[in-house]
Structure formats: structure tokens, C-alpha cells
């Protein structure tokens, strides 16, 4: 470190934090702003968001908003304290100048900060052929506006909906379609839906649920192309199993892409897997040094979790955005001795096909899974995930009340298979392989994954061959040379 740098750091520690800027006005950004005020921060908070809306909640977009139960305008999130913030909405940040501590806005303005929180999250992965993506009837689902558009399509009662990708969003959309009595086909490139998030064993159960509810589920199948009529309206889809589907709506549910583009040339350590940070949510720069004034939270982050061997985790979960933002906010206004480490367990819920699915821990870390309570036939069960003889995650299906007990076991690094005293626990536990796709094989929506040690720029996994494997049109079995 040069003496110049050292001086700058020393003076910045002494200078009180007066201006905090948050880029990304969604769940993590809002949660951070609330926590800053609860921590007693009295300086200015500026929240910059490219969407035109006050922070709203995304989970209902693929559930109650799509069924028509909830108006999209009703998803606005409450603000638990009077934030006294300056909101710059509908305004993208286009650059970050770390030397001058300024965020550059699309209209040319520059906003100075003492501390910055980056919570720019993700956007939906687009269909790779842009002409096909632009066909009338091809939809994404990530924002409020997306949900309004898709809801209108479904309300118009299309003859068949095609859902491309059997991750959580795709599965929930298919569930809503069946609830509305619409014919729906789901294509999934892997062997089962939800395989990236839950593994093949639990994914097979998810597939059974889909079929039992009348979904035309096609696994190991990709959509090769979408085709429109003369007026540009989606007409049919060509599948890798040779079938041609007659459809008027296609929902592209191929997972999320991290909003890191605006940080190009910023000097921060980021790539398509997110921005690398330390356990205190401080971003790393490209030299692998931790920054003192740039913090990150939510879907955009990869960070070292102590329970998962220090590999950087990337987690696209509601609870993670809330909790990580709280820790980041605390650390933004704390002296070094008071810094907290962020080590919440990943936790997720989903509702689909009549069941409440909940998860705690990191299933994709596991090598084995075992049914510990309930049964597949009753559609009420708990499954525990193990890695090298310890429990690392649990999944409940309509048995949410058991989750805290498993959470405690995971945190205590309890042995796997777990020792249970539940009345309905299986007499003899028989673990089976969890069935996660091999490392590096891309699934549509892994949701929570380890992303290797970091920070390293660029990502070792980014190469022309891996891009080819990522192309959702490429059928399974493709071998990169």
C-alpha cells in the first residue's frame, strides 16, 4: 500500500459517515435503509433505482399476482421507519468512480458518498435469439410490469402456455396456469424440474407433482426455436424431442443474470457470478483488497459462508436480501471493532401444485439426501441433505413447523443421517444420492450455489465452451470439446 493510500484510509476512518448512497431500490436496498435509520444513522440516505416504482415485493409476482388475487400495485413494501431518504427512481446508475467516491447517473449527474451500498440484484435471462424473444407472446417474469403483462396474457385464456425452464419461477408459473385451468407445457433441460436447487431425488418428486396436476412436463428437452406468424405473433415452438407445439404464450424462465454491467471499469471484483465481498459485506477490489466504503447486499453478492468451507455463496432468496442488507447497514456505520459477520443460513419458500415447499441451508452442497419424516404419497415430508456425514440443508413439504429444528441441527453441524425423536420419523433412514448436476453444468435456476473461492477475475468458468453449454437451446448430452 502506498503512503498516500494509507493516509486516505486513516482519515476516512476518523471522518464521520454523513452521506450514504444505495444503488438498487428493491428489497435489499429498502431493508438496508430501514436498518441504517434503526441503527441511528442521521445523515443523508440517497436511494437510486432504475425501476420507476417504490420498492415492491417480487415473490407474489409468480403467485398471487399471476392468479389475479393481488393487484400488482399492491406489492409495494411497507417501510418500517420514517426513512427521510432522497429517492431517485427511474434513474439508472451507469458508473462508479471509486477514487472520487461518486456514483454516476444516466442523466449525467454524479452523487457523492461516504459509504455506498450496491444492491442491484438481477434481471431475468432473456431468450438468446432476440428476434424470437421479441415475438408477441414471449414473456419474462421478474418485474412488476412483467407480471402485469403475463397476468393479462393468462387472463385472455391462451390455448397453451409454454414454460421454458423448470426452476422455481417456471414451476410456479406452471402451477398458476393449472390453477387457472390452462394447458401448460414445461420444458426442462435437466432430468427433473428444480434439480439445480433441490437435486434429482427431490426434483423427481417435484416432477411427479407437476404431472399429477396435469402439466405436460418434458425433461431432458430444450426449446430449439420459437416461431411467429406474419404479424409477429408467437405461433409455435420447436422442441429438441422433435415435437412442434402450437402455443400463443411462452414464458422464458431461464434464471437470473446479475446486474453488474454498470460497474465496468469501477475497479471492483465482479463477474457474472456477482460481486465478491468479505464476511462483513465489504466489496473486494480487483486486487483482492477489501474496500472500506463499498458494501454489497442481496442477489448481487457472493460471500464466504463459514458453514460451507469458505466457498463464496451466491443466493437468490428473499430472506438473504433482508438479512444481508441488515448486516451491511450495521457495518456501514460501525467502527472496525463492531463489525458483524454475515452468516445467516440460506432459507427459501415456494408454493406450487398445492404444497408449501420450504428449504433451509444449502442443498446444492450435499452429496446425499434422506427422507426423515412423512411420506411422498401423503405429500407431507421432510428431507435432510448431508455432506460428508454432516447435515447441511433440509426441505419441508407441507411440514414447515419442523424447519427450525433442522435449522438448529445444520448450525450445530449435526451428523448425517440425523438422529430424530419425531413421532412420524421413518423407522430406518436410507440416504440416497442427492443428485445435483456435476459442478460447472449449468441448470436453469440453481437459486443458491457455491461459486468457488474468490475473488478471481475473470471467472475461470467463463469461456466460449461454457457459453455454449449455457445456451438454453442446446439439448442435454452436448459435450464441450
Amino acid at each position, binding site marked *: 500500500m502506498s503512503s498516500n493510500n494509507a493516509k486516505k484510509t486513516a482519515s476516512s476512518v476518523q471522518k464521520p459517515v454523513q452521506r450514504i448512497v444505495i444503488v438498487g431500490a428493491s428489497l435489499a436496498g429498502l431493508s438496508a435503509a430501514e436498518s441504517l435509520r434503526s441503527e441511528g444513522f442521521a445523515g443523508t440516505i440517497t436511494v437510486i433505482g432504475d425501476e420507476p416504482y417504490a420498492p415492491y415485493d417480487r415473490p407474489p409476482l409468480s403467485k398471487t399476482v399471476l392468479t389475479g388475487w393481488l393487484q400488482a400495485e399492491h406489492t409495494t413494501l411497507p417501510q418500517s421507519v420514517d426513512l427521510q431518504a432522497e429517492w431517485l427512481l427511474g434513474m439508472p446508475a451507469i458508473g462508479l468512480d471509486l477514487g472520487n467516491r461518486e456514483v454516476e447517473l444516466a442523466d449525467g449527474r454524479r452523487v457523492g458518498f461516504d459509504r455506498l451500498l450496491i444492491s442491484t440484484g438481477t434481471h431475468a435471462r432473456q431468450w438468446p435469439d432476440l428476434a424470437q424473444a421479441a415475438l408477441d407472446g414471449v414473456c419474462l417474469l421478474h418485474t412488476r410490469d412483467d407480471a402485469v403483462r403475463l397476468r393479462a396474457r393468462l387472463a385472455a385464456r391462451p390455448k397453451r402456455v409454454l414454460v421454458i425452464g423448470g426452476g422455481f419461477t417456471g414451476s410456479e408459473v406452471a402451477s398458476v396456469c393449472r390453477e387457472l385451468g390452462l394447458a401448460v407445457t414445461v420444458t426442462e433441460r435437466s432430468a427433473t424440474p428444480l434439480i439445480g436447487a433441490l437435486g434429482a431425488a427431490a426434483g423427481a418428486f417435484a416432477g411427479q407433482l407437476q404431472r399429477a396436476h396435469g402439466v405436460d412436463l418434458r425433461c431432458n428437452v430444450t426449446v430449439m426455436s420459437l416461431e411467429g406468424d406474419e404479424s409477429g405473433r408467437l405461433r409455435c415452438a420447436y422442441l429438441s424431442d422433435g415435437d412442434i407445439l402450437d402455443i400463443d404464450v411462452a414464458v422464458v424462465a431461464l434464471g437470473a443474470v446479475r446486474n453488474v454491467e454498470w460497474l465496468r471499469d469501477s475497479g471492483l471484483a465482479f463477474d457474472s457470478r456477482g460481486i465478491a465481498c468479505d464476511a462483513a459485506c465489504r466489496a473486494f477490489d480487483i486486487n483482492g483488497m477489501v474496500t472500506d466504503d463499498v458494501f454489497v447486499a442481496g442477489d448481487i453478492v457472493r460471500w464466504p459462508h463459514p458453514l460451507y468451507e469458505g466457498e463464496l455463496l451466491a443466493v437468490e432468496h428473499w430472506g438473504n436480501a433482508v438479512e444481508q442488507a441488515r448486516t451491511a447497514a450495521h457495518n456501514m456505520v460501525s467502527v472496525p471493532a463492531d463489525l458483524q459477520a454475515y452468516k445467516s443460513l440460506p432459507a427459501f419458500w415456494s*408454493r406450487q401444485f398445492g404444497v*408449501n415447499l420450504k428449504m433451509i441451508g444449502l442443498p446444492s452442497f450435499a452429496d446425499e439426501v434422506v427422507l426423515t419424516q412423512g411420506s411422498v404419497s401423503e405429500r407431507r415430508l421432510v428431507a435432510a441433505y448431508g455432506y460428508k456425514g454432516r447435515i447441511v440443508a433440509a426441505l419441508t413439504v407441507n411440514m414447515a413447523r419442523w424447519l427450525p429444528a433442522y435449522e438448529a441441527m445444520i448450525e450445530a453441524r449435526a451428523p448425517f443421517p440425523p438422529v430424530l425423536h419425531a413421532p412420524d420419523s421413518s423407522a430406518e433412514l436410507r440416504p440416497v444420492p442427492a443428485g445435483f448436476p456435476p459442478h460447472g453444468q449449468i441448470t436453469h435456476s440453481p437459486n443458491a450455489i457455491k461459486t468457488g473461492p474468490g475473488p478471481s477475475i475473470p471467472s475461470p468458468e467463463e469461456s466460449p465452451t461454457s457459453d455454449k453449454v449455457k445456451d438454453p437451446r442446446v439439448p442435454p448430452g452436448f459435450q464441450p470439446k
Partner: protein
Amino acid sequence: MLRIVVDLNRCESYAQCVFAAPTVFWMKDEESLEYDYAPDDSLRVQVERAAAACPVQAISICCLDEQLEQQGGNHSEQQ
């Protein structure tokens, strides 16, 4: 304006909130809680009762700044 959010990671589907405010919260299927984020102001007392009744304190209630809510689209700044 009345606004609520439920931490569904924490919610254990006890349905106490459904009894307290049945037009705001409802149980979908066996144990999936669904709810209206923006109940009518006239339901405030019911919603407060629901939040108080929740055994795991998963329900947060707040009022939302009308100005922010209406801000949609017009890049405005409030100082």
C-alpha cells in the same frame, strides 16, 4: 396508507392471522399463507390484531409515505 409484509421464511402456518383478519390473510391449500400487502385502511385494527396474534411475529405493518407511493415514473426528488 396501510402496508404489510409477512416473512414467509418465519411463518409456520399457524393461521392465527387468518382468524384475526380473514379478508387480508388466507390459507392456500394446506399451509401456504397468502395475503394482501395493501389492505384497506378500515381494516387497520384487524391487521394489528393479526400481527399481535402471530406466534412467530412474522407480520410487519407500516404506513407508506403517500408521496413516495405516487412518485412512480417522475424521477422526483424530495429533500
